């Protein structure tokens, strides 16, 4: 009897399964192959160009950009519709789509340091002619930025936001140890002296506060007067004297404070994007940041005074040295309507559009006139960041197609040396050899 009942049940569940499959199949069939057209766009009109624009921005930055893209769509009611979606900076999505013959029409999820990598591998279209036709001469941009978008005699993209590096410090902590907050360090010796004065270690040897914990060899290497790549000779120069000096100097900090102690101290840092940022929490009296840090100050520590200075430099080094980067708007190869793609980039690059967007997300507009607007210049720290970006010692990424490889090897070298796993000179020599090999291999493939 039991068996019989169970058989009946089974047959019923089998029928259920069959039924479910049918419903499932029907549902699958109903899933729209082409999604409903957003924003009342009429895709049947033949003259209408439909653009897929992929951005790396998300969150409120995405919303701020959507406002501008909506303006574009309103202005191009009859000929172009741009559908923006974010890829969260995932290159795998971008590269898979391009390799699959399905590239986005415009993509800004390309970091500046990847521009040459993409261009040199024929992943992008040059926009030189489009820019010239639209009267874009480069005069209106910060010269370093305009130059950074060029490679091999062509223009490959344009940015509508940028940033630069500064050192932030806390006047109140300076005063506590008798340092003059109005005379912050200018030279490296002064920085060392200030840092040592600000360092506090308790009776157990545990670090309580530091001055500055140097990090980021790609910045300090340049502050020390070095370069990682020599364009003339085509050689990687990551083991040149200034860079070795820079890394040795950085390592001197962890050596002085104790490698294990620094690791423990840093493991006690709170979230970077919060009230517990080590600068706000008083664990660090100085910190390497960018102009975007002003918004953190306003949001997480509105009552705390934070000032900003250029990176202190050694003798023979570079004053007012900064690195810049950002997302580049590019057109992949093989898109359907390159002129429509350009029209979106052109629209978003307008002085007012760019300024509004940058102001909303606290970045520097790449056009000089936009950056000079009062709403930016009224903030002296912002003005400093702009001045650095406009200076002679502002550096973009090296124009080589192996920047990601270089970055990952440099970051490994830095953390290995700072945690006492390797020696400075040997490590940098190894990095140089490895990156040179990678570069040579890549260049051999190009020709």
């Amino acid at each position, binding site marked *: 009897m039991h068996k019989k009942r169970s058989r009946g049940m089974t047959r019923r569940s089998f029928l259920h399964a069959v039924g479910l499959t049918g419903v499932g199949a029907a549902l699958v069939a109903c899933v729209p192959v082409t999604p409903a057209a957003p924003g009342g766009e009429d895709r049947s009109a033949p003259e209408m160009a439909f653009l897929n624009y992929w951005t790396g921005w998300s969150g409120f930055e995405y919303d701020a950009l959507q406002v501008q893209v909506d303006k574009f769509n309103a202005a191009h009611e009859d000929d172009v519709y741009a559908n923006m979606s974010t890829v969260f900076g995932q290159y795998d999505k971008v590269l898979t789509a391009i390799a699959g013959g399905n590239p986005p029409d415009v993509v800004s999820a390309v970091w500046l340091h990847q521009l040459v990598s993409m261009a040199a591998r024929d992943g992008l279209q040059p926009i030189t002619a489009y820019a010239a036709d639209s009267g874009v001469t480069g005069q209106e941009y910060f010269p370093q930025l305009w130059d950074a978008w060029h490679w091999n005699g062509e223009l490959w993209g344009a940015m509508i936001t940028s940033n630069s590096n500064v050192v932030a410090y806390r006047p109140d902590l300076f005063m506590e140890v008798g340092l003059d907050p109005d005379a912050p360090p200018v030279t490296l010796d002064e920085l060392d002296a200030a840092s040592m004065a600000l360092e506090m270690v308790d009776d157990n040897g545990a670090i309580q506060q530091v001055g500055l914990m140097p990090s980021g060899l790609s910045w300090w290497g340049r502050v020390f007067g070095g370069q990682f790549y020599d364009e003339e000779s085509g050689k990687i120069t990551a083991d040149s004297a200034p860079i070795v000096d820079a890394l040795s100097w950085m390592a001197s900090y962890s050596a002085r404070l104790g490698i294990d102690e620094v690791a*423990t101290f840093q*493991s*006690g840092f709170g979230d970077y994007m919060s009230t517990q940022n080590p600068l706000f929490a008083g664990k660090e009296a100085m910190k390497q940041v960018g102009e975007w840090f002003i918004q953190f100050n306003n949001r997480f520590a509105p009552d705390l005074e934070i000032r900003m200075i250029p990176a202190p430099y050694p003798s023979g080094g570079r004053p007012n040295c900064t690195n810049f980067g950002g997302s580049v708007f590019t057109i992949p190869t093989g898109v359907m309507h390159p002129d429509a793609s350009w029209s979106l980039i052109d629209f978003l690059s307008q002085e007012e559009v760019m300024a509004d967007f940058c102001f909303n997300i606290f970045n520097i507009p790449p056009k000089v006139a936009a950056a000079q607007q009062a709403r930016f210049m009224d903030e002296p720290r912002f003005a400093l960041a702009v001045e650095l970006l406009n200076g002679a010692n502002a550096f973009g990424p090296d124009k080589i197609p192996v920047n*990601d490889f270089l970055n990952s090897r440099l*970051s490994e070298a830095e953390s290995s040396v700072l*945690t006492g796993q390797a020696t400075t000179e040997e490590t940098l020599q190894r990095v140089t050899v490895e990156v040179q090999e990678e570069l040579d291999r890549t260049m051999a493939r190009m020709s």
Partner: protein
Amino acid sequence: MLVRLLTREQRNLLAGLLFISPALVGVLAFALWPILQSLYYSFQDYDILRPPFFVGLRNYEDLMDDRVFGIALRNTLYMVLWGLPIHLAFDFLMALALNMRLRGLTLYRTIFYLPSITPVVAATIVWLWIFNGQYGILRTLLGFFGVPPIGFLTHPDWTKPSMIFMGLWFGGNTILIYLAGLRDVPVSLLESADLDGAGAVRKTWHITLPMVSPVIFYTLIINVIGYFQYFTEAWVLTASRDGTAGGPANSLLFYAMYLYQAAFQQFKMGYASAMAWILFLIVLLATWILFRSSGWVYYRAEN
């Protein structure tokens, strides 16, 4: 009917193939070509954006000279040799505890599964806080025992043990599988062992373990495959905005992470494919050895 003309063996073959036919179709449609394609790429210089060209064994040769590849392989082996046995043993003990008739069992069993369904970003925030060297809960607990502060995620010697510790939280699926297996142990067997005066340890060893050996074997194989491809947790915890990942001194750079960087950040899909195929062969060999030495697994259907 035609089927009647076949021998019993042929009929069985036909039936077997019919039952697995969805798998055959699935492999032919969605797996075979991508797999063969990646094998093909592994002998090519393929930068994703341009057509590939043949380079023979060069990707494989280059890998042998790649220092960082060695680091990634060693880090991964560390996880397989330490993390995997620790996790499986822990999960099994948890399942044993959860298999007892305890009060509030429904709740406990739901609780152990919670970490497995927490969204990754939320889990990461929680873990960064747990590992915080000053106010983190781990630091506080260890402090009670007089252990000095440790840079769990900042000191190269501690990063991998920290990851293994963190992995204890994500055993929900394995525990669930063990639980299902444990419920299969016939109560009659355990009761007769009770009458013989067997202790808990002996009962577990001589009755429970053999009876659940099929699922233990499953978790072993699946986790060998999974640990060799260890990626998400380490990537989420160490990736920085400039695309570098791997933790202090590359102590958390695992095989699949290095492979991903090569493929999608450094435009070396051919190289990454060679890396993938080496991993494939390692895992296949490990699986094959485990299958060959699976005499300890007790299948009632076979006896």
